[in-house]
């Protein structure tokens, strides 16, 4: 489990776009670096990330090693009804983690 911060307004208007900021605490080891002994440090990144609002996709992203450590993403979403804003991501070890926050639609 890694630490995930999702920042979005708690209450939004129907079908009115709102900004979501997402910060994941992850090293995103690129696989290009070497340690003191010249051995390659294995790649360890989050490669797939899906964000959805109440079951509907906001976006699906493929991340590559060129994404900085502790990936930060800011994007816009809309909600038709109250529900969970969910973020699901998978890393190179095959671990899938899901985090969500509740958003109510006024």
């Amino acid at each position, binding site marked *: 489990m890694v630490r995930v911060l999702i920042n979005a307004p708690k209450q939004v208007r129907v079908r009115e776009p709102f900004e979501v900021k997402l910060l994941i605490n992850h090293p995103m080891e690129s696989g290009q670096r070497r340690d003191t002994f010249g051995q390659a440090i294995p790649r360890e990144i989050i490669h797939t990330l899906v964000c959805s609002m109440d079951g509907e996709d906001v976006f699906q992203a*493929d991340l590559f090693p060129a*994404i900085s450590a502790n990936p930060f993403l800011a994007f816009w979403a809309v909600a038709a009804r109250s529900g969970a804003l969910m973020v699901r991501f998978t890393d190179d070890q095959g671990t899938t983690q899901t985090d969500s926050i509740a958003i109510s639609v006024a």
Partner: protein
Amino acid sequence: MNGSPVPLAAPCLPPVPLPLARRRFVLMAVTGTLLPALPARANPHQVAGLIRAITGAAPIDTGKVTLDLPVLVENGNAVAMTVSVDAPAGSVRALHVFADGNPLPEVLRLRFGPASGAPRISTRIRLADSQTVTALAELADGTFWRDSVELLVTLAACLE
């Protein structure tokens, strides 16, 4: 070097491994394998090929998509980038970002869904060198739009 301890895990390391035995060092020097650390770089041709694989024969126009990146980058480890498309939320199918001077040219691939509020994304990327970064937008009507930024990187992302 009078037997000073070698740090075990420094974040940024020299390209040549330090505790090489002398014989192995000489062998590597002779066989030309002593400088293996510079990772291969992508190049503009590779990026052009990747873009062609996405667009096929369709023409690519400039405009509509805006790639927002600083022209002078102090630290390549985390460069703030924003890609936005001047089009309604539902009309953009995908966004692609390529960096032609990184070891791997692909940076980000994004497919928008029905709950997207605007075709816009901000993130932080790594840049290994001064290079050209390209954003490609794929619209639902089948058109393709691109924007490129040529930038200078003072401190490259740590690749060694």
